[in-house]
C-alpha cells in the first residue's frame, strides 16, 4: 500500500559549459552564430521512485549531481529529458535565508520570506509565534536582519522554511547550520515530519547521520545512479568504491 510521492522517470540534465563566456553582444557577434560550448550531462537517465512518508537520502561525491537532481525536483531547473512528478506541496531548503532583505526587520522578513516560499498571509500570521519561537531570535525580531549574527540569520531562515508545512521537503546540506541545540531542534523537527507521514529528501555527506535518519538511500556518481536501497548496503557499497 505504498504511495509514490516522487516519480523520477529517465531524467537527464545537460549544462552548457562555455569555453569563453563573457555575456556581451560583442563576443556574440564575434563568434558568429555558433557559440563555443560543450554539453555536459550532469544527470544521466536517472529513474527511481520515492514513497510517501519516506525519509530518503542522496549521497555521492562532490559534483556527482545531487544538488542538480534536487533542483530539478524543486522546479528550479528543468530536465532536458525525462520527467519528474511530485505529489503534493513541495518546499526546498536549498539555501536558507535567501530572499531576506537586510534593511528590514526579522518580523518583516518572516512575512516576505514566507510568501516567497509559498505561504499565505493568514498562514504566516497563524504560525508567526511558532516560527519566532523555533528560531530562538525573539529578542531581535524587530531589529534589521543585517545586524544578526550569521547563525541567527540561518536559524530564522531555517525556521521560516520548516514552517511551510510541505508534503515533500527537499533539504540540501543545511543540516549543519546553527549551534548544537539548534541542530537538535532540527533533528526533532525531521522526526516530527516523518511521524506526520511527510516525505523528506535529504542530501548530505554525513554518512553516519544519513544511515540513522533515512529509510532508503540513493547513490549518485558522475550523474549516474549507482544504487538505491537500504542505507547500510548503499553506504557500504559507496565506501567500498571510495577506498
Amino acid at each position, binding site marked *: 500500500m505504498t504511495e509514490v510521492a516522487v516519480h523520477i522517470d529517465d531524467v537527464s540534465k545537460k549544462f552548457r559549459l562555455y569555453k569563453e563566456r563573457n*555575456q556581451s553582444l560583442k563576443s*556574440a557577434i564575434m563568434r558568429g552564430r555558433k557559440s563555443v560550448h560543450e554539453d555536459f550531462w550532469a544527470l544521466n537517465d536517472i529513474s527511481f521512485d520515492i514513497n510517501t512518508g519516506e525519509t530518503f537520502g542522496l549521497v555521492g561525491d562532490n559534483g556527482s549531481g545531487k544538488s542538480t537532481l534536487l533542483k530539478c525536483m524543486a*522546479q*528550479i531547473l528543468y530536465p532536458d529529458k525525462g520527467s519528474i512528478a511530485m505529489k503534493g506541496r513541495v518546499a*526546498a531548503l536549498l539555501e536558507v535565508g535567501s530572499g531576506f*532583505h537586510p*534593511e*528590514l526587520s526579522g518580523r518583516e522578513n518572516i*512575512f516576505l520570506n514566507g510568501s*516567497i516560499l509559498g505561504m499565505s498571509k493568514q498562514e504566516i500570521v497563524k504560525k508567526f509565534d511558532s516560527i519566532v519561537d523555533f528560531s530562538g531570535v525573539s529578542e531581535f525580531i524587530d531589529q534589521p536582519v543585517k545586524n544578526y549574527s550569521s547563525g541567527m540569520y540561518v536559524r530564522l531562515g531555517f525556521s521560516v522554511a520548516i514552517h511551510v508545512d510541505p508534503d515533500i521537503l527537499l533539504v540540501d546540506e543545511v543540516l549543519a547550520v546553527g549551534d548544537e541545540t539548534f541542530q537538535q531542534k532540527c533533528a526533532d523537527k525531521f522526526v516530527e515530519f516523518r511521524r506526520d507521514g511527510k516525505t523528506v529528501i535529504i542530501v548530505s555527506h554525513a554518512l553516519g547521520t544519513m544511515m540513522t535518519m533515512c529509510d532508503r538511500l540513493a547513490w549518485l556518481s558522475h550523474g549516474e545512479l549507482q544504487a538505491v536501497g537500504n542505507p547500510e548496503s548503499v553506504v557500504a557499497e559507496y565506501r567500498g568504491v571510495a577506498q
Partner: protein
Amino acid sequence: MAVSSEFKRSRELFINLTQRELKGKYKRTVLGQLWSLANPLALMLVYTFVFAFIFRIAPPVGSPSGLDAFPLWLLCGLLPWIFFSNVVQQGMGVLLANEGLIKKVYFPRNVLIFSSAASLAVNWGIEMMVLIVALVIAGAYGVIVWLPVVIFFMFLLAVFAVGIALMLSIANVHFRDTQYFVGIILQLGMYLTPVIYPISLVQVQSDRFGSLFGVFSLVDLYRLNPMERFLSAFRSLLYDNTWPALGDTVACVLISAVVFALGWVVFRRNERKLAEIL
C-alpha cells in the same frame, strides 16, 4: 484549481515583494518616502530654468483649462516619462539583482518584474496626486472630472512599460550590454519625445522641410514614438482638461496590449531556463 492557487500564491508574493521594495528603499532616511518626490521636483526646477527662462520655450495655453504655466505643463509629461523610464530600467535589472533567489527558490519569476513596477507605480501615484493638487490650485478645477480617464491611461502606460521590461529583462540576462544600451536609448528618448518642449516646435520644422521622400513628414516620423502618444494623452487630460485625441487613445490601447502580450510570451518562453543561464 492548480492554476488558481498558483495565482493566489503569486498575488501574495507580489504584494510582499512590492512592500519590500517600498519599505527597504527609504529605510533610515529622515525624509523617507518624500525623497521620491525630490527627483521630479529638482528636474522641474532645472528644466524650467533652462528651457522656459533661458530658451524661452512657451507651451500652448491649456484649453479649456486656461492654464499657462511651464512647470505644470512640464510635469504633466515629465512624471509619466520618469515612471516609464524607471520601470524599464529597474525591471531590466531585476532578474540579475535577484539571482540568488531565482537559483534557490521556485516561484513565478514574472512577479519580480511586476512588483518592481508596482513599487514605482506607487511613487508615481503619489507624484501625480501632488501634481493634480497643484493643477487645481493653479485654477484647472476641471481636472477632477478627468481623474478616472487619467487613471485609465496610467494603467495603460504601466502595462506598456511592464511589457517592455519583461522583454528587456530576458535580453539582459543573455547580454549584459542591454542595460547600458537601453540606458542611453532612454536618455536620448527623453529628448526625442515632447517632454520638455511642445510638439508644435517639431511641427514648425517639419513644415519647413515638407514631406520626406514624398510620403511622410518629419512629424509623422516623430510621432511613431509610442511615448509621444501617451504624453499627448496625459497633457490633454491634465493640462487642457479635455478628451485625448481619438487617434492617441487607440494607439495607446493597441500598443500597450501588443507590447505586453509580446513581453509575456518572451518571458514565458525563457523563464524556465533562468536559473541556469543567470
